[in-house]
């Protein structure tokens, strides 16, 4: 009956294990082995599937929220910052002066996770770590925080540079203060340097500490990338430190209660979903279908997670507007539709290619359970009237 693949290669196993990272450790411990075994076969059968990826990401995030309630409580009461950096792409154009700069790993002073609270006046300390192949002197001229699509950019209030990030463990908030007794202090090195306008020498591993604020109440701030512009020998370059598929979200709230409000949980999940969507390469033909699929699937996952059964047209329009605003080049111009015998029939009008045309796509009929809960949604060309 089933086609099982016993010769799954190690690359497939690594990919399958990579998907596991979306899930919390408790979940991984319980289901990880069998989940990976399952994914290995699926990946061997169908190596690429945006629908599968988004399904795993969405359910992984919701599992994370339900499994890590205790961790979330601890994190939210600490009211600290957020940030993870997964990868860096060093874009240094036509210069022989520079070796590429790459980010080794994300690190945020010991607090990890994808969502945190912050009061509007609080400054969150966030570190961006990276390694270099060689010791070079640079002068950082500007640092820009680029927001994730559909989110606000945190306000940057300060940037400090620290060589040897592995020796740092900031416990004091902003501005950064090095704890007593660290190796850097014992060795007499300058622990922290005001970064903008200062010439610094890169070590093998360095850190930029960013002071970030989330000033508007009840709004979510998410970072897609950090762009660091610097000069070396009079030549200006910019390196882009990307958040990849794990964007950081700061929810601005006066209430630092133990429970994450629904709006914040939704925005955290939305940030990961849009980051995953953005990280996938696709053709102009594939793009509208993936947009509609993501919006429909995300609306479905959100509503399922909150136990409300089936997403309404209002839900779908909300996420369409957040992800693909009407003024963007890949806008979802409208969503219409109804439930027909309990089955959602949504019609998406999406901006097409460069000629400002529109692509019209519809949800397929999926499968609906007796209580009206939708369990699957796909996208296809609309049936002819």
């Amino acid at each position, binding site marked *: *009956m*089933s*086609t*099982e693949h016993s010769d799954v290669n190690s690359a497939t196993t690594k990919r399958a294990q990579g998907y596991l990272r979306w899930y919390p450790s408790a*979940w991984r411990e*319980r*289901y990880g*082995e*069998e*989940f*990976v*075994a*399952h*994914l290995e*076969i*699926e990946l061997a059968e169908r190596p690429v599937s945006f*629908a*599968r990826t988004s*399904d*795993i*990401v*969405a*359910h*992984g995030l*919701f*599992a994370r929220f339900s499994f890590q309630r205790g961790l979330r409580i601890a994190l939210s009461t600490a009211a600290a910052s957020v940030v993870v950096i997964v990868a860096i792409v060093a874009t240094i154009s036509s210069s022989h002066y520079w070796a590429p700069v790459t980010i080794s790993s994300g690190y945020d002073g010991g607090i990890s996770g994808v969502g945190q609270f912050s009061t509007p006046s609080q400054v969150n300390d966030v570190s961006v770590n990276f390694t270099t192949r060689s010791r070079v002197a640079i002068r950082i001229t500007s640092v820009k925080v680029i927001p994730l699509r559909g989110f606000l950019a945190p306000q940057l209030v300060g940037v400090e540079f620290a060589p040897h990030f592995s020796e740092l463990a900031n416990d004091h908030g902003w501005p950064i203060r090095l704890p007593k007794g660290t190796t850097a202090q014992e060795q007499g090195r300058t622990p922290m340097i005001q970064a903008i306008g200062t010439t610094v020498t890169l070590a093998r591993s360095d850190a930029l500490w960013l002071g970030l604020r989330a000033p508007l109440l009840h709004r979510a701030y998410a970072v897609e990338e950090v762009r660091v512009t610097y000069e070396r020998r009079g030549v200006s370059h910019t390196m882009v430190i990307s958040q990849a598929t794990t964007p950081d979200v700061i929810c601005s709230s006066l209430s630092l209660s133990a429970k994450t409000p629904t709006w914040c949980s939704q925005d955290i999940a939305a940030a990961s979903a849009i980051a995953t969507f953005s990280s996938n390469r696709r053709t102009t033909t594939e793009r509208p279908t993936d947009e509609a699929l993501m919006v429909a699937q995300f609306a479905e996952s959100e509503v*399922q*997670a909150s*136990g409300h*059964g089936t997403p309404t047209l209002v839900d779908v329009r909300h996420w369409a507007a957040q992800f693909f605003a009407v003024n963007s080049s890949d806008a979802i111009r409208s969503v219409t539709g109804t439930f027909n015998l309990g089955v959602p029939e949504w019609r998406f009008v999406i901006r097409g290619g460069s000629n400002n045309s529109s692509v019209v796509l519809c949800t397929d009929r999926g*499968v*609906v*359970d*007796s*209580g009206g*809960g*939708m*369990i*699957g949604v796909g996208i296809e060309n609309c049936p002819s009237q």
Partner: protein
Amino acid sequence: MTKKTSEGPGRVAGIAWLILTSLADGEKHGYALTQDVVEFAGVRIAPGSLYEAFARLEGQGLIEPVASADRKRPYRLTAMGARALDEYLSVQERLAIEGRRRLGASRRFA
């Protein structure tokens, strides 16, 4: 009209019934189950949805894992799961009969 019971599978209801139906004729691991569901229902359950449903159904005592030396751990229906599925199917049968009866009546007067 359907009535939710305390044994109902909750927010993953649609997938849950497919899973319970698939396990009704014997234990299966995740991939075999998805292939089975494709064959009898024409629906492919994505991995994230499947394991969310597994976790929920196991938590509700409707399915249980079977000890296995293989990484692909099989699951089987519990007695409670079999009862819940039976009740669900009974409701569906009554609904189908009533729906067909009314549909036939309305066609006669169309």
